[in-house]
């Protein structure tokens, strides 16, 4: 049942991704609006999938990569929908919807094949750690996506020419705001994720810091986002530099975390 809901979520996200791409390439605002609405519907189904999951097991065995990726997709979508209510950000759905689809699709196919971490002592801290870290990573993903679009849009505006095929992108100011907000919130969540991770390890293994590649990579990611937040708050970097840093930061995070998880 839960697997079906995940598959359904993936299908709805895929539809949203198709609509977002169509809306952008056809420059049709109605289709673009429909894409955002479909994405919202996908987020609801996704929440249903998590609820159903939670009903069967508590604490949920979401410490595996599929569960974490699915959570990231959901948090990222929810954050995007929340900011899209206030800012002109329909164009960002072109990145968010396919990313959400890929995340849930991966979770749907990987969940049945990979081993789930069973509920064990300290599993509650583990679940909280995964939720917070996944949310932080998701926001890092949204910041990276907004940063990528910012860099592309900035380059187009500086070159002062339009290609016929160029997609309508959100205003630079809106992309920059999302970037700043996502980085700040993401940093907070990753910080909490690191703290709860430490508590989890302490409870289960009695160590202060596990020193695993995963823990070390997360610490580096935390440091990157911390530096980004500080330099932004001090106005030491402009919007373009912040956008580039967000892209690089997320690329590092994704490679480090996913790479460590996948390669062991």
């Amino acid at each position, binding site marked *: 049942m839960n697997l079906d809901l995940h598959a359904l979520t993936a299908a709805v996200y895929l539809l949203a991704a198709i609509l977002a791409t169509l809306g952008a390439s056809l*420059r049709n605002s109605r289709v673009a609006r429909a894409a955002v609405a479909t994405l919202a519907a996908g987020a609801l189904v996704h929440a249903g999938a998590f609820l159903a999951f939670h009903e069967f097991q508590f604490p949920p065995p979401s410490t595996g990569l599929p569960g974490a990726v699915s959570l990231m997709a959901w948090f990222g979508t929810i954050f995007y929908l929340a900011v899209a209510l206030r*800012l*002109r950000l329909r164009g960002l759905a072109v990145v968010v919807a396919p990313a959400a689809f890929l995340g849930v699709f991966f979770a749907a196919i990987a969940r049945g094949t990979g081993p789930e971490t069973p509920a064990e002592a300290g599993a509650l801290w583990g679940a909280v750690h995964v939720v917070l870290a996944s949310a932080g990573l998701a926001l890092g993903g949204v910041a990276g996506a907004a940063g990528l679009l910012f860099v592309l*849009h900035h380059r187009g*505006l*500086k070159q*002062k*020419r*339009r290609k*016929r095929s160029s997609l309508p*992108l959100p*205003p*630079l*100011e*809106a992309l920059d*705001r999302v970037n700043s907000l996502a980085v700040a919130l993401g940093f907070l969540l990753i910080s909490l994720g690191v703290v709860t991770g430490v508590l989890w390890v302490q409870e289960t293994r009695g160590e202060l810091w596990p020193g695993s590649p995963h823990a070390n990579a997360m610490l580096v990611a935390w440091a990157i986002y911390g530096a980004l937040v500080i330099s932004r708050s001090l*106005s030491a*970097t*402009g*919007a*373009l*530099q912040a956008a580039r840093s967000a892209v690089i930061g997320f690329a590092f995070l994704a490679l480090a975390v996913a790479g460590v998880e996948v390669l062991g």
Partner: protein
Amino acid sequence: MSLVLVGMNHRSAPLALREHYAAADPREALTKLVGDEIAEAVLVSTCNRVDVVVWAPRVDVARLRLRSFFERDLAREGVPDCGVALEDALYEFEGAEAARHVFRVASSVDSMVLGEPQILGQVKDAWRLAVECGACGSILSRLHERAFACGKRVRNETGIAERPVSVARVAADLAGEIFESLEGKTALLIGAGEMIELALEAMRGAGLARIRIANRTPARAAALAERFDASAHGLGDLPGLLAEADVVLTSLGGDRPLLGRPELEAALQARRRRPMFVIDIGVPRNVDPAANELEGVYLYDLDDLGDLAEANAAERRREKIRAEAIVLEEQQRFDGWLSALSAVPTIRDLRERAEAVRAREVERVLGRLELSPDARDGVEQLTRQIVNKILHAPIARLRDQEDRAQGLAILETARDLFDLDGREPGRDEEGASADPSDDLED
């Protein structure tokens, strides 16, 4: 009955001629136009065109009437000095072509600025006025309703109106790509000439929180600022003003650039690196082009804006092909409707005529025979069935006219064959023999 359109536009007539024939009082003009020769009329009179479309019984008469309408009713006093005669400036369309022209106009395919949005509203206003003064009936109303739908389809289904083609709109669009909204933003206008005044007019409704005007002569800036609820400054205030300005528009005379990279760099630092959109419409340029290399400065000069406007215009021209296809589709749909509508009175006339002949002949025969009521009913029923069966095929043919030109020809032939527009049914057959073979012998 047919559609006839006579008019002039920006391609066929110079402005001097167009303004000479622009309707001073369209209501009065329409009231004069509609009568025996013209059943319905709609007059579209804008700065770029004067078009009159009518629904009239006879095309040749309508054409003459419309030409005289331009000469007698629309012409203003005096003679336009433009070297183009009215007869050379007028174009004429009839039937399907007239409908197509109305659709093209409403879709802004025929406009001077392809895809401009105003024309649809202007055609709507013209149609409403014609309805109000009783000049527009069901045919032209239907034509215009379809034209409005066509215009809407063209706007929604093509990119003909998507990208701005005027320098001012291009600049406004660019501002929309940089800023979430202009609400709460500060604009700095450097100069106090005509261009700055035009820009002020355009910016008025954009929701800007503050408008600053800086000029070499502060008194001129003050005069302008008073009119537009802005603040006036001298050029000495520029460093402080730049630090606050989100949008900078310069149009100042001078040999050397007024703003260089260092000034804008300092402004960026002072405004915590928030972006600045700088529009330089001065000739020679007021801002050093190297300032565009600064991360937060988006600098566009007149050529940049002109190039974008031209690129957008080229894009619209490409979209025109798709728009023309929609226009053709909608015109054919309208023609189908008009054609079917024209068949209705012909079919009705044909039935009435056949029934009149049947009833008269049956009455004549039954008067000579002594038949029981049942037998009389039987004869009535039999003759009705014969008439219905004979008329079935011609009526079906009249109804199924897919091709408009052919359909009108069939209708005309049917009316001619059955003499539907001629003598009143019944009267001409008074002395005629009931036996068709008698006619053959004659």
